């Protein structure tokens, strides 16, 4: 049983215990890896376990809930998952995940995206940090945030800017508190639709073939099976990695017919960010809902209200908000337009 420790800017610390660390799991949090940390905020324990279901409320024969405790057993796409959480509503969270799952080819991907990521966000949120589904770049201590749904241009935008004299901060999620952006260096999520020519240059023949193959699977399965290719940003951008910048401009990206830019108000941005956060939080959105049903007065029951309150506070005065319509074909000319807009718009 191996123990690996991770820290996110010393704000949130966690550890993963497992007999097996598949490559994708290794890669995902590689940049957070550290030596021993004393007090971890959560533990992911991937091993066989027997849940303690005594005195639990049982919902739908699937969810077992009692004070500070949650267990569920269900199927997702190609796997069957057992997950147990102690400390859901308070204190250190101990998360047990059944290991049969990890042997499954897609399991490690699932565990990262749907379990570990959720707890990272939950613990950051508990400390007043907002976690925004966006990419971000910075220059001279000033940061630019690009929140959007998947497919609207987060990665492409960040990569273009990073290759144009800006510092890269992240392409998937960003951490914001009191107007300061902290980098979040998970691997770039590459798919056929966001392959920047600059990235393609770095990819070998095998990787490029894999991307085409995964795209085919995506289409054949009507979007059900989506497998990203991963690339460590530190390897790509070396010294051009930024951290702790003052957020100056927020540019909401959305896929539209034509390139367009428009000033919008803070409320629209907050609404967008919170909804996006909810959409990104499945399956936990449902788990929190069921926990709130049993314990309507718990911290978990007011989780989304708290997130809304925090994002409003963390977007401090003086930040400017815009919406950028990005066409399907996102090439260099589109990027130049956006960059000019970012640099010149008052």
């Amino acid at each position, binding site marked *: 049983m191996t123990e690996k420790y991770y820290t996110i800017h010393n704000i949130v610390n966690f550890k993963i215990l497992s007999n097996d660390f598949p490559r994708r799991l290794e890669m995902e949090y590689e940049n957070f890896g550290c030596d021993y940390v004393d007090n971890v905020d959560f533990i992911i324990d991937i091993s066989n376990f027997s849940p303690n279901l005594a005195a639990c409320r049982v919902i739908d024969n699937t969810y077992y809930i009692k004070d500070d405790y949650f267990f569920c057993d269900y*199927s997702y796409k190609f796997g069957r998952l057992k997950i147990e959480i102690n400390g859901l509503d308070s204190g250190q969270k101990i998360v047990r995940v059944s290991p049969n799952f990890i042997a499954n080819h897609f399991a490690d991907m699932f565990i990262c995206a749907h379990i570990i990521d959720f707890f990272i966000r939950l613990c950051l949120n508990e400390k007043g940090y907002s976690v925004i589904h966006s990419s971000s770049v910075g220059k001279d201590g000033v940061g630019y945030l690009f929140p959007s*749904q998947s497919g609207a241009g987060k990665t492409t935008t960040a990569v273009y800017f990073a290759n144009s004299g800006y510092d890269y901060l992240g392409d998937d999620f960003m951490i914001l508190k009191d107007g300061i952006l902290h980098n979040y260096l998970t691997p770039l999520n590459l798919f056929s639709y966001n392959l920047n020519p600059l990235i393609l240059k770095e990819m070998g023949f095998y990787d490029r073939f894999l991307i085409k193959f995964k795209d085919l699977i995506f289409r054949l399965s*009507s979007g059900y099976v989506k497998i990203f290719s991963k690339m460590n940003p530190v390897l790509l951008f070396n010294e051009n990695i930024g951290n702790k910048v003052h957020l100056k401009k927020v540019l909401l990206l*959305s896929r539209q017919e034509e390139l367009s830019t428009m000033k919008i108000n803070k409320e629209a941005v907050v609404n967008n960010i919170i909804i996006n956060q909810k959409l990104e939080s499945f399956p936990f959105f449902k788990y929190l809902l069921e926990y709130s049903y049993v314990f309507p007065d718990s911290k978990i029951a007011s989780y989304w209200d708290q997130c809304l309150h925090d994002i409003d506070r963390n977007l401090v005065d003086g930040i400017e908000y815009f919406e950028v319509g990005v066409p399907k074909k996102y090439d260099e000319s589109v990027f130049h337009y956006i960059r000019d807009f970012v640099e010149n718009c008052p």
Partner: protein
Amino acid sequence: MNYSIYNKLNFQISSNYNRKVNHLRWRFFETEEEKEPDFILNLGRFREENNGSIVLSHKYHVKENYFFCRDRGLDGQWKVEIKNMDSNPEISLDFHLNNKLKNLFLKEYVAQDFILPFLELGLFKKGFFLLHGGAAKKDSQAVVISGRPGSFKTTVLMDLVRRHRFRCIGDDRVLVSHGQLRPFPTSPFLFNYTLNKTETERRSSLNNFELLCRMIGGIDSSELPLKSPVDFHQIFIISRMNVEDMTIEPINEVEAARKLFLNNFSEYVSSVPRGPLSSFHKYILTYSLIYPNNAFTEYWKVLEKTIKKLIRGLSLFEVCIPSKYDPVYVDRIQNFWESRAGN
């Protein structure tokens, strides 16, 4: 086929296949009269009109008052389009079930579930709350039995009918206004079949086969409740719990309102994609990215407060039933209810 809910809400369901089973679901509300429908559901193949829409996350097509997507889940695959989202919605749904047998005969029957959120919203605008729960009546007094799936809510309801001569006036939904219930049978023949042919609500394969045959033949001999409203003063919120003995405890209005709200809302949320109904909240969330002040978002914002007002003055109880069910629990619930009824 036209339907009318107590002349308050009218709707229409049309399908490519005029199967007998398709008419079973909402039989209670069938009407011959031609009324202006508050919403329409079209089942079966359709051509989507999604040009000019914004595409979100590669699959959701959104424009003003319009939503479209192709999706799939554990139950099957579908494409759904909602036009006139905020006024008189026109919904088109083409749903294919994974289970081949069910898909052959029942796919449109199952797809009709998708009107539930539109029923809920439409009735709310007319001053009613379509509560997710069951209700039974005895001697002109009713009781509401609410609970999450798997909470023994249906078992309790059936045992009240079997053992205490109650009559069921709602198996899955109940229409609530101040202190009054109106019957809202959603699958009367299913409820009655299970009630009469099984001792617990488990149907054997033979039961299911017989049920399927009856459905295909459109056979529904179930007795439907009268359409008149019934008074009620008590709501029991049931939970299944891994404990040794049953408990009944009073619960305050605030907690009860929250549980009743979540019990309705959670129908439209699932942890993994299943079918169009349990993806509904996700669709509205996506639509809200562009149109945040839409009808459903506004409804969910005010629903909990409205429920709290509706249940003011009622007696509210939380019942925890052990996972090892015993029919004597229903006897105790019945006694408890009866001792407080008529107040």
